[in-house]
């Protein structure tokens, strides 16, 4: 479903080249739950951003759902992101003036989906992520865990091919982190594909497939 081959990404920092990714090959199958771990600066976020089409590789090719997306135009990338990618960020990235419900349906609104079609989807998402009572609350009236649940519901709203989470528990206390992780695992159990970047070895250990990165390369890829 996701196929990266020979993906490299180099940044120029103060005249020096920083190799964030060096020729990464990676395939992710439908329904996989994958964790990416590794020391700071090893290229985890860069890899996730390239998978999420927020960043472009310098070399290599990327196929998403059997379609080459390496050379798409800016607008086409936006459309693919909208339809196939669900992002979950460390700092939630909710729109502060919108309610939980409005934040969740934001991708559907941007996609121009009819309100009549949005309503049942929104109701289902609110119920699924236990947010019914919080639907009308704004982010500053929600706890961190609730915010991240809103963010996950938002990521799921367009029925994406893959959920990409960059340190989704990094901004939460242990207990809430576990809870949010439980939510992501449920997405996986319901058949969703999830990629999580994390520093927490315990979280990594719970995933079905574990990637280890070091200095821009994938150094370990364990399953089971």
């Amino acid at each position, binding site marked *: 479903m996701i196929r990266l081959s020979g993906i490299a990404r180099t940044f120029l920092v103060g005249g020096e080249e920083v190799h964030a990714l060096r020729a990464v090959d990676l395939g992710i199958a439908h329904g996989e739950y994958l964790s990416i771990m590794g020391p700071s600066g090893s290229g985890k976020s860069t890899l996730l951003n390239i998978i999420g089409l927020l960043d472009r590789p310098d070399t290599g090719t990327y196929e998403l759902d059997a379609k080459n997306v390496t050379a798409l135009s800016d607008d086409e990338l*936006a459309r693919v992101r909208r339809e196939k990618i669900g992002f979950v960020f460390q700092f939630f990235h909710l729109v502060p003036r919108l309610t939980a419900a409005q934040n969740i349906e934001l991708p559907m609104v941007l996609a121009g989906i009819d309100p009549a079609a949005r309503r049942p989807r929104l109701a289902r998402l609110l119920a699924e992520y236990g947010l019914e009572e919080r639907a009308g609350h704004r982010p500053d009236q929600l706890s961190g865990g609730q915010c991240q649940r809103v963010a996950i519901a938002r990521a799921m709203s367009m029925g994406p091919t893959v959920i990409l989470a960059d340190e989704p528990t990094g901004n939460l206390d242990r207990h809430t982190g576990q809870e949010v992780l439980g939510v992501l695992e449920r997405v996986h159990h319901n058949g969703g594909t999830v990629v999580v970047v994390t520093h927490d070895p315990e979280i990594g250990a719970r995933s079905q497939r574990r990637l280890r990165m070091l200095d821009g390369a994938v150094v370990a890829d364990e399953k089971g």
Partner: protein
Amino acid sequence: MRYADFVSFTFASLRAQRLRTVLTALGIAVGIAAVILLTSIGEGLHRFVIDEFTQFGTNIIAVNPGRIQTHGAPLGAVNTVRPLTIDDALALRRAAHVQAAVPVIQGNAEITHAGRSRRVTLYGVGAEFGAAFRMRVALGQFLPEDDPRTPRAFAVLGSKAAMELFGGDNPLGDRIRVGGERYRVVGVMQSKGQVLGFDLDDTVFIPVGRALEMFNRESLMEIDVTYEPTAPLAEVEEGIKRILSARHGSEDYTVTPQQKMLEVFGTVLDAITFAVAAIGGISLVVGGVGILTILTIAVAERTSEIGLLRAVGATRRGILLLFLGEAALLAVLGGTAGLLLGWSAALALHLVLPALPVHTPWSYALLAELVALAVGLAAGVLPARRAAHLDPLDALRSE
């Protein structure tokens, strides 16, 4: 994005910063209100002046002695100027399309009756004067059609002059003195009120031949020619000139059609209205700068939100439109408020100062709204483009 969603998203952004929104919209509102108020006064003035001039009719041509280059009052006689005479006026009656040619001379005179006296404006005129200028008598009749060279000593009083001299009594048939000579009152005019500052009621009308003698003048001040309203003006002018030039040997007089005067007035007054609109427009531009500033700040503050919107699928164009939409909405809100503000200010002004003519020109109001919208969009372009060109990743990382 659906249109309704677009509008409500934009509204939500503005509502989240209520004070800012109100202040920014106020900038536009003041500009619009200024345009509307100023053009209301300009347009009111325009209508006032035109109304004052057209109440005597528009098919009038004034002939004055002396030659001038452009339309307006004669600048003083040239050496070879021959006087404009009553015979000239009589001759002009024969010109094509002409209905009446009224000789006019104006001055001041003292009128007395039964020990009361009053200084009034004296008009020495021909018998057709009242009809030509659409002035009606309230009592009696206007000056009769005597032989203009030997007219009888009849006088017609303006309504105010009659009231001052006779109180409530009927002055018809009574004798008064005008400039020391005896006249008999044959009529009293209906009240005309002030026209461009002249009191047309504090007057006395006597036959023009007698007025010339009284003031010891050779020349009339003016001959007012009225013509058939459907007649082509150029032809009428031509006919007048042909007759007068033949009589005088040269064009030592000036022909001023009121229509041309009205055109000149109209042009000048339009220019004034446009100028005040432009002055109001400057404050609109200032309001536009306010929108530019606020949106620039908003883009900086909401960079991470822009990143998020891009991540969940908004295109650059989508972001551009969102911010342009905010700019336009600010301008429209301000424009609407300004419309109400300017209009009520104009109404209030009219109530407080009824003498000041105020008329809101809706074409200018509409134009002002469109300009406000354009100013808003123009002000929004820079910040909206900046927002649209943000790299989504960089934007997401800014916190």
